[in-house]
């Protein structure tokens, strides 16, 4: 079993824990763990820049956003903790079974998939791709970022009438 296979299994286990765990804070931590595993896999595949951005943004910034929202919305402890936990277990127990069956099935099938032929000419660096080959979609991305900023300003603003 190669290192990549172990990393991929850990990635699936982290995402499985994120999906099945009962407490939201643990789910947020599991999501950060999934991002860390994904960053390691990206680095192992040679995508260093994407790995660094995945690690800093997805494992860092997004986790902070999730923890902030959880802390703002969880006001009181559950009175029916065990009932909720049992209900969640009933809903989510098929997921590991489904993943195991599908994983075994796909590994047994193993259809011959050949990737596209590698380009004959040497490919430019990722920075060249990011800043030189893209033109119009860069403006689109800037607009999306601006809409995110304005969305945050609108959604997180305080109510003028004395509300939160």
């Amino acid at each position, binding site marked *: 079993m*190669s290192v*990549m*296979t172990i990393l*991929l299994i850990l*990635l*699936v286990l982290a*995402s*499985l824990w*994120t*999906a099945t765990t009962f407490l*939201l804070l643990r*789910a*947020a931590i599991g*999501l950060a763990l*999934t991002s860390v595993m*994904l960053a390691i*896999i*990206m680095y192992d*595949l*040679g*995508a260093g*820049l*994407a790995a660094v951005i*995945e690690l800093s943004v*997805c494992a860092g910034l*997004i986790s902070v956003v*999730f923890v*902030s*929202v*959880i802390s703002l*919305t969880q006001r009181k402890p559950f009175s029916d903790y065990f009932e909720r936990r049992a209900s969640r277990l009933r*809903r*989510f127990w098929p997921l590991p079974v*489904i*993943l195991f069956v599908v*994983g075994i099935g*796909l590994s047994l099938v193993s*259809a*011959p*998939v*050949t*990737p596209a032929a*590698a380009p004959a000419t040497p*490919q430019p660096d*990722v920075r*060249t*791709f990011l800043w030189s080959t*893209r033109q119009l*979609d860069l403006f689109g*991305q800037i607009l*999306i*970022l601006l*809409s*995110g900023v304005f*969305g*945050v300003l*609108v*959604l*997180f603003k305080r109510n003028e009438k004395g*509300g939160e």
Partner: protein
Amino acid sequence: MPVPIWLYITFFVLIVIDGLYCVLATYNLLRILIGLEILIKAVSFFIIACGAAAGRLALAQSIVITVIVIEVVVVVIGAGAILGFFRRYDSMSVRNTREMKG
């Protein structure tokens, strides 16, 4: 030893099933957002894996960086919307969305 691309496809499918189940089997809006995040991570992984297998890693990286930027905006807007929803209904259950206007 090169990793066969079928291994990438297998694990991509597993993570997609995980994210879809997380979205469909819950009533909590924040958990739905977390499931969406898992789905986006599956797509990011698959883009990088295919880029590495096809020898076009730089192009794949630039696409994934764009995906990450959009992912952050989606999460922040979604979190803000969930927060506003919680302040209005004191709950994060999807069932309460039926009472929304529009």
